[in-house]
């Protein structure tokens, strides 16, 4: 049974090896690992670039900014 969009994103978030493969070759990985997702998803993953990653970077910065602990 084909895997869904939610499973794809869940695995991309939690599995570092899969994430690396997906970002390198989204079409190939989605096909070989049996995900049934719309073509737009592949296009969106291909479009993730450093400026898109900026949102994640800002979240990390914000999280770190709130931290007060003995380091």
């Amino acid at each position, binding site marked *: 049974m084909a895997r869904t*969009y939610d499973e794809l994103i869940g695995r991309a*978030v939690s599995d*570092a090896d899969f994430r690396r493969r997906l970002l390198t070759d989204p079409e190939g990985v989605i096909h070989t690992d049996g995900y049934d997702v719309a073509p*737009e998803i592949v296009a969106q993953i291909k479009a993730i670039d*450093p400026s898109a990653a900026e949102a994640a970077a800002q979240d*990390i910065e914000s999280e*770190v*900014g709130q931290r*007060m602990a003995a*380091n």
Partner: protein
Amino acid sequence: MAPDIRTVVAGFGRRLGPELRAPFDAILTRLGDLDAYFCEPHAQPVVALPVWTAGLAERRGRPIPGVRLDEIVASAVFGYLCVRVHDDFLDEARGHPASVLMLSHALFLHHVSLLGHVARSEDLWLDYAEAMLLEHRLLREGAWDEASWERALRRSHPLVLPAAAVLEAAGLADLGPAVEDLVRHLVRAHQRFHDLLDAWKDLGNGNLTWTVRRYGGLEGRSVLNRRLLLEGGFDAEIRASNADLDVVSERGREMGLTEAVSYVDDRRGIMAQAQRMAFSRLFEAFVADPGKHR
């Protein structure tokens, strides 16, 4: 049972004259609730390590007197506060130079007086001073390599001293090298993880850490984003931290320092949570299922 940190620190504060008291109060105000500050999940086990070690000594039939443990824990707190004053001044130019010199002098003196004689104390504090100056220079120049990063890590090695004092008081000094090795790996894991989370802030502040340098930060934030978040750098750093935590767990199990093993499990949870946060933001914000909106 460890002493109440606020009470210990407040007692020392009352001994200070007004000139020293002002910068002392300023740092306490900035750190907030000290009990929370030292016990927060992201914190290094500054206070916990001597308490864990005392637990180990007790399980080995060598309990140390509660009064002595209280002194050692207080010593850990004052040693840390001294380092905090140095760090804030060197990294952020926080504090007036004269206040920084005199306050850190007072804090260090109190730390040493409470710690008592510990065999490696002088060597570790000399390493600390050397490592702080090295790090301060390299953060401006950005000329890090693996060896200099390892040398700079020695700034955190005095963390082991309160635990070493407990072992000496318990007649278990033979465990000192194992605890020192555990702390060395703990510090590596901790520094690597926090340099990773701080990479964007450090770049913005002009602190050119080894992480910033290795992952292209000198070429700009966009390159740092790409190499850390899109090309596997973030995951590689988490893997490397976990490898050091494996050694900490192993040493903890070998010695029967079970609290360290639990601490490592919590650390792994914190790192995994940070990893999920970063990548859920990356994917969930930019990859939307068009079918869900039909």
